C-alpha cells in the first residue's frame, strides 16, 4: 500500500490563503462593473463584480467584493456626493482592493477606496455614445424644432404624484401673479429606479394618444438625497422624447451635466419650479403681445380719428373763404352782365334816338305852316280839304288858309 501524503481541505485552503497573502499583499486599483449589490443588515455592503467582453454578453472575470461597514460609511456618501449617483448594477467602478481568501467563503476582495471620476467618465462616455447614436438616427434635434404654442396652458405633467417637485410645480403655476389660467394633468411615472425608462415612455405614450388635449409635456421630479439621473441617460427614453409630437420640457432637478433626456428635450430647466416659471414667462410674453396689439389698435384708431377731425376742421375753416371767393366771382359776373345789359340798352337807345331825330326833321319839314309861309295855301269846302277842281261847282263857298289868316270866297264860274 502506497502511502500518500494527504492534507485536509482546511489545510489546503489555509495554504492558498497564506500564498495569496504572501504573493499579493498589496492593494490594487481594479476596474470592474457592478453586477450585484446588497447592503447587509450590519452596515456592510456586498458587491458582485464582473468584467465582460466587448459584446457585453460573455463574462471574462467575476469576483465578490466586500465593503466593510467602516469603509462603506465613508465611501458611500463620498461617491454619491461626487457623482450624484448611488452605486448600482451596471455601473463601471474603479475600486482599491486587497485580495483575500477565506477557508470557508473562498476568494474575495475587500474594498478600501473608490475613484468616482472613473465612474463619471464612464457615464459621460455612455451619454456621448447615446447622443452620437441619436444624432446618427437623425432624431436628436426633432423636439427642439417644435414651437411652443403662444398659449401653453394645457400641460401634461409626467412625474410621480408623491414627488415634492410635482406639488412645487402646481403651486408655482396656480399662484402666478398675473392670474393666468393653467390646466394640468398628471401622468404618473417612476422618477427613480429601474422602472424610469419603461414608465416614462408609457406615460409619453398615454399623452401622445390624446395629444390634441395638450400644448406641452413636462417631465419633472423633486430633489431627493441622490439625483439618480443615469436612468435618464437612456437611448429609448431619449428617442421617445426626441420624436414626441409636442414640445417636451424637462425639469428633473440636477446641477451637473445634462442627461440625455435633457439634451433631446425642447427645453431643459433645473427644477420643477423653474419649469413652471418658464411656462408662466411664455404666457406672459403672449399677454404682452396682446397688450401691445390692443394699445396699437387704440393708438391707430385714435390717430385716425384725430386725423379725420383735423381734415374736417380744415374743410370747415375753408368754407367761408371758399364762399367769399365764390361771392366775389358771382358778383363780378353779375356786374358784367349788368354792364353789358346797360350798354346794350344804351346803344339801342342811341340808335332809336337818331331815327327819332330824323323823323322829327322830316316831320318838321312837313309842317303845313312852313308850307303856307312858302306861298302855298290850303282850301277847304264845307270842312273838307279841296284836292280837285272838279269836286267844286259854282256857288260853293271856299275857305282858304294862308300863312297869316283865312280868306272866304265864292265860286262864280
Amino acid at each position, binding site marked *: 500500500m502506497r502511502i500518500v501524503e494527504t492534507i485536509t481541505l482546511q489545510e489546503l485552503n489555509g495554504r492558498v490563503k497564506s500564498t495569496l497573502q504572501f504573493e499579493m499583499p498589496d492593494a490594487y486599483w481594479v476596474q470592474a462593473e457592478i453586477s450585484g449589490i446588497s447592503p447587509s443588515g450590519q452596515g456592510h455592503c456586498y458587491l458582485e463584480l464582473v468584467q465582460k467582453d466587448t459584446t457585453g454578453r460573455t463574462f471574462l472575470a467575476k469576483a465578490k467584493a466586500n465593503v466593510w461597514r467602516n469603509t462603506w460609511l465613508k465611501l458611500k456618501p463620498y461617491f454619491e456626493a461626487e457623482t450624484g449617483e448611488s452605486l448600482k448594477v451596471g455601473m463601471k467602478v474603479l475600486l482599491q482592493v486587497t485580495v483575500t481568501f477565506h477557508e470557508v467563503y473562498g476568494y474575495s476582495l475587500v474594498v478600501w477606496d473608490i475613484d468616482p471620476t472613473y465612474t463619471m467618465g464612464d457615464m459621460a462616455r455612455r451619454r456621448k455614445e447615446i447622443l452620437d447614436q441619436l444624432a446618427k438616427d437623425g432624431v436628436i434635434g426633432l423636439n427642439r424644432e417644435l414651437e411652443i404654442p403662444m398659449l401653453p396652458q394645457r400641460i401634461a405633467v409626467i412625474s410621480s404624484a408623491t414627488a415634492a417637485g410635482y406639488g412645487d410645480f402646481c403651486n408655482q403655476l396656480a399662484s402666478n401673479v398675473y392670474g393666468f389660467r393653467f390646466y394640468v394633468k398628471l401622468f404618473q411615472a417612476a422618477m427613480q429606479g429601474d422602472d424610469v425608462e419603461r414608465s416614462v415612455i408609457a406615460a409619453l405614450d398615454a399623452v401622445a*394618444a390624446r395629444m390634441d388635449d395638450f400644448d406641452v409635456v413636462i417631465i419633472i421630479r423633486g430633489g431627493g438625497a441622490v439625483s439618480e439621473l443615469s436612468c435618464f441617460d437612456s437611448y429609448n427614453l431619449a428617442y421617445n422624447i426626441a420624436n414626441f409630437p409636442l414640445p417636451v420640457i424637462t425639469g428633473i432637478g440636477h446641477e451637473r451635466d445634462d442627461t440625455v433626456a435633457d439634451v433631446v428635450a425642447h427645453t431643459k430647466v433645473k427644477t420643477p419650479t423653474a419649469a413652471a416659471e418658464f411656462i408662466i414667462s411664455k404666457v406672459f410674453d403672449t399677454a404682452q403681445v396682446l397688450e401691445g396689439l390692443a394699445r396699437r389698435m387704440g393708438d391707430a384708431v385714435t390717430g385716425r380719428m384725430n*386725423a379725420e377731425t383735423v381734415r374736417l376742421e380744415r374743410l370747415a375753416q375753408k368754407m367761408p373763404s371758399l364762399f367769399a371767393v365764390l361771392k366775389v366771382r358771382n358778383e363780378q359776373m353779375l356786374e358784367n352782365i349788368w354792364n353789358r345789359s346797360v350798354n346794350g340798352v344804351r346803344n339801342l337807345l342811341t340808335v332809336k334816338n337818331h331815327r327819332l331825330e330824323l323823323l322829327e326833321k322830316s316831320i318838321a319839314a312837313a309842317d303845313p305852316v312852313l308850307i303856307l309861309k312858302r306861298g302855298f295855301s290850303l282850301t277847304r269846302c264845307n270842312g273838307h280839304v279841296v284836292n280837285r277842281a272838279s269836286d267844286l261847282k259854282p256857288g260853293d263857298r271856299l275857305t282858304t288858309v294862308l300863312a297869316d289868316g283865312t280868306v272866304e270866297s265864292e265860286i262864280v264860274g
Partner: protein
Amino acid sequence: MKYEEAIKRLEEIVSEIEGGKLNMDKIGESLKEARELIKLCKDKLYETDEEIKKILETDD
C-alpha cells in the same frame, strides 16, 4: 377660434388701420371685431375654461 388665429387677425386689423387703408365707415366694424378678439384672448388668458377642465379631468 384659436388664440393664435385671433392674434393673427388682430395683427391684420391693426396693420390695416395703421396703414390708413381703411375708410372711416369700415373702421367702426374693425374696431368692433378687434374688441371681440381682444376679449376672446383675455378670456383665454384669465378665465377658467370649464370645457378644457372637463376634458383634462377625464381619463382614457
